[in-house]
């Protein structure tokens, strides 16, 4: 059963989704940091289609795409489940995972671009936050989207809990006005205080430094 490797890059939130899942389920693994400007033969071999991280390699077999990796981990190691067992509740969770996965990319647009593209990203990010605040089931009533325990929806939205604030600081663009999204804010606090998550978050000051450098490169490349 052993031999689990994770190819990731720091401080990618997509890498962290997988790290959190492995840690929450108590699965030992070897983490191999990747240099995306100089991709390793292992990465190119393991994800020839997209050449991206994260990639989970289990028993020599690679799986790519963070949400697909999470579903694999869930099925292979059923302890501390990340999805509900009831089929309809599971479907609702999968919807929110997909929604979070697709829409949270808008936050990256705020980071990656400036001007019109950045404004578009900001507008989309706000729409996403509004929809989650208003419609996400359990939010405000339970500690996490997954209920009393962290689930896959929480992991998919991890970017909002920790990375969004750093992006706001580095770009000077406010995405989430304080007080406007009370239920989401409460969730963000619960998520970051969970003992497993807390121990597995990139250090804010290191992340700010790395993001600042990256943003300078993005803006310069225009």
């Amino acid at each position, binding site marked *: 059963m052993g031999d689990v490797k994770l190819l990731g890059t720091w401080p990618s939130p997509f890498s962290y989704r997988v790290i959190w899942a492995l840690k929450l389920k108590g699965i030992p693994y070897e983490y191999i940091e990747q240099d995306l400007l100089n991709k390793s033969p292992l990465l190119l071999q393991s994800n020839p289609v997209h050449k991206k991280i994260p990639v989970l390699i289990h028993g020599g077999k690679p*799986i790519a795409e963070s949400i697909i990796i999470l579903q*694999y981990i869930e099925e292979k190691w059923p302890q501390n489940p990340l999805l509900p067992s009831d089929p309809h509740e599971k479907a609702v969770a999968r919807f929110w995972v997909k929604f979070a996965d697709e829409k949270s990319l808008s936050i990256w647009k705020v980071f990656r671009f400036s001007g019109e593209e950045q404004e578009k990203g900001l507008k989309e990010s706000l729409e996403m936050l509004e929809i989650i605040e208003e*419609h996400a089931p359990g939010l405000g009533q339970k500690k996490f989207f997954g209920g009393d325990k962290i689930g896959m929806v929480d992991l998919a939205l991890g970017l909002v809990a920790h990375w969004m604030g750093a992006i706001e600081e580095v770009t000077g663009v406010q995405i989430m006005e304080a007080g406007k999204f009370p239920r989401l804010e409460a969730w963000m606090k619960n998520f970051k205080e969970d003992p497993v998550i807390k121990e597995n978050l990139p250090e804010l000051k290191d992340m700010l430094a790395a993001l600042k450098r990256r943003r300078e490169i993005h803006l310069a490349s225009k």
Partner: protein
Amino acid sequence: MEQVTVLGSWPSPYAYRVLWALELKGVEYEYVEEDLLNKSDMLLKYNPILKKIPVLIHAGKPIVESPVIIEYIEETWPQNPLLPQDPYEKAMARFWTKFCDDKGLAFTLFFIGVGEEQQKAAKEVREALKTIEEKALGEKKFLGGDEIGMADLAWGVLATSLGVIEQIVGMTIFDAESFPRLHRWAQNFREHPVISKNLPELEKLLVNYTRKREMYLDTKIA
């Protein structure tokens, strides 16, 4: 058995995936055609967030987003499985399904784009077809192996609407010479006893898509 209803809009490929899944499993359902320019109360009630089709309603509870719907159908009606049992093979089926969904924009731009934008999209679609033929299909009859699986349902567009779109835009990208195995796959897909009874009529598709392309081009010029 509890009532199963599908809200769809002809000839949506996403709706077809859901219908094929139900037909392959012999699940009885009621189909409701939606007018997307005049959305019904039912659609707005069951998909208030995205207001899109397809929607599956089972015992009064809605499930939205075709990949989420397919997973739900697979778990609720396990006969004639659309996913392999092995978690790794399951991950691969999900990977190739997502790969198709990720190419949605490229397919759309090939269809309604003009000039350089369309050329770029055509190139991207061709590269995707190459990847599917070489890496996903290989020597198998279907992407799912000997039987149709989830990934086949997603790529079913190649067997149904792509030919019509090529005709309308006057550009062939899915030619038999470049993609012999994929062409054979498309034929096997179309001739499958269940799929063959649930294919969109090509003449109707031609009329529908011609009108759609004209509409898009008009709004661009306007």
